[in-house]
């Protein structure tokens, strides 16, 4: 019988720790599919963050390092400088990348560090039980903004893709979503482009993936997808924010 659908080889045969209905699992799978398609599993080192994907080192078949909260781009930098021909990626959430690890993220991009970041933005701290994230929307109710995020108290959400795209060291930055089949396909293409960018030694790349958190948003998985489309997409428009892949890298 012909196999038409199977687990990617780079995705470990283990039970993922994500809540039911969360889209992290889809994104993990996309990363593994891309590693398979590029034939890079044996020469890939992934970096897991602190957050919902803290145990992601158990989910991929390639070598993995677990980083301290927010430090994944620095850890990836250390790995990449030792193994410049390997594929080095980080998998980070919004708290990890856009709050505690902002400096590491910005400077990895500024250095044109030749690494790939998969940035999962679900507008909330999931692992710790639903606190306000740097990407939480104005008005969004969380455990630490029980009356909604108020501009006068907590200011505005950070648009990381837009911000990082202003840096000359960034080669490719795209924001995607995994709320629908067409968008999942686009997300995979973006991750592949980012990894290929690294293999071509073009410099820093990041794919921001809008993702759901049904548990902490207090919604069903289906309602969560709808909430993402209606609330997150206007604040975080999908698209390519930076593409310097055709430019010659300055030596």
């Amino acid at each position, binding site marked *: 019988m012909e196999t038409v659908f199977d687990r990617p080889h780079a995705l470990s045969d283990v039970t993922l720790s994500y809540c039911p209905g969360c889209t992290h699992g889809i994104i993990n799978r996309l990363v593994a599919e891309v590693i398979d398609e590029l034939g890079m*599993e*044996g*020469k*890939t*080192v992934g*970096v897991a963050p602190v957050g919902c994907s*803290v*145990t992601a*080192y*158990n989910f*991929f*078949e*390639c*070598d*993995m*390092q*677990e*980083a*301290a909260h927010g*430090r994944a781009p*620095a*850890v*990836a*930098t*250390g*790995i*990449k*400088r*030792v*193994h410049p021909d*390997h594929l080095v990626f980080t998998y980070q959430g919004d708290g990890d990348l856009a709050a505690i690890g902002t*400096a*590491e993220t*910005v*400077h990895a991009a500024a250095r044109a560090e030749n690494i790939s970041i998969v940035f999962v933005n679900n507008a909330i701290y999931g692992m710790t039980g639903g606190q306000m994230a740097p990407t939480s929307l104005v008005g969004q109710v969380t455990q630490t903004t029980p009356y909604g995020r108020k501009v006068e108290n907590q200011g505005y959400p950070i648009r990381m893709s837009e911000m990082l795209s202003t840096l000359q060291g960034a080669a490719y930055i795209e924001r995607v979503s995994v709320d629908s089949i067409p968008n999942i396909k686009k997300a995979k293409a973006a991750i592949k482009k980012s990894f290929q960018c690294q293999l071509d030694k073009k410099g820093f790349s990041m794919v921001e993936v809008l993702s759901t958190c049904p548990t902490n948003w207090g919604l069903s998985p289906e309602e969560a997808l709808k909430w993402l489309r209606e609330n997150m997409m206007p604040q975080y428009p999908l698209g390519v924010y930076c593409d310097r892949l055709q430019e010659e890298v300055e030596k």
Partner: protein
Amino acid sequence: MEKKVLMKGNEALAEAAIRSGCRFFFGYPITPQTELAAYMAKQMPKRGGTFLQAESEIAAINMVYGAAGAGARVMTSSSSPGISLKQEGISYIAGADLPCVIINIVRGGPGLGGIQPAQSDYFQATKGGGHGDYHLLVFAPSSVQEMADLIGTAFDKADQYRMPAMIMGDGMLGQMMEPVAFQEERDPSSLPEKPWATTGTMMKRKKNIINSLYLTPEELENLNNDRQKRYQTIMENEVRVEEYQTEDAELIFVAYGTIARITMSAVNMLREEGIKAGLIRPITLWPFPTEAIYARAAAETSKAFMAVEMSQGQMIEDVRLAVNGKKPVYFYGRNGGMVPDQEAIVKQAKQYICK
């Protein structure tokens, strides 16, 4: 050994590290260790290595984590306030059993403190520093030559025991120039293999994971207990200590680093006056030379001990534990960047002896 050259301590550390096969350095500027990073910036590109100025000490130590986990011989350097910032990463490095070398050219604290030499980071270096039960191997050289000699040892021992090692100097050692002879350069490819490192599976082995997270309490306790066993082995085998004129000494000084050299002069001055003084100089601060000190404390000849430190008294706690009540333990120290001379030590010692 090659011909002697005149060099600053900071530069000698850098040169000796490169000769020990270190090809990766991640740092952030801070006085008084600046020359070390500057030397690395100049030399690493010429010698096939990587120098990277990070955006913070936090980033630098996490780059060290990544590179060490990837199998490289790697180093960072800083001074007290910067070392405080690195503590998060050092705890993770210890928790993930990664070898690396961290240089602390200590300056006065707390806070921004000053930029003059001090030894006030002893607690931080020897009692953990970051969170969790862990130790660093801590080496305390007292000359530029010893700095150059100990760095290779620090790298080798870090690899052997899979743990971070620290060279704890001070602003004086880092800044002063002395003649130094270096060991022959080692080829990084000749260093021992690290089969646990994330070098890529090449589809030939199971994946390697560098990690310090263990959510099952039993598993974490077992791993911590295994690490403690390793620490026990280290305490039994890796103590380094120098004794000077202790054989018949009645007053025994305990001092390390810069102040140990000055104390040695104080011993000579006291001897000239007919006072039998001696010096125990810990070269490793962890593991601490507890047994060597206890042996002298238990001997009939010794009457008193005196810890001399460039701090308000930190190592003295370990000296007291080692002496174990056998003899009185006195203290003399200056801090905040003050370095006492031998006359001050002699004067203080006489006060205690004449009690």
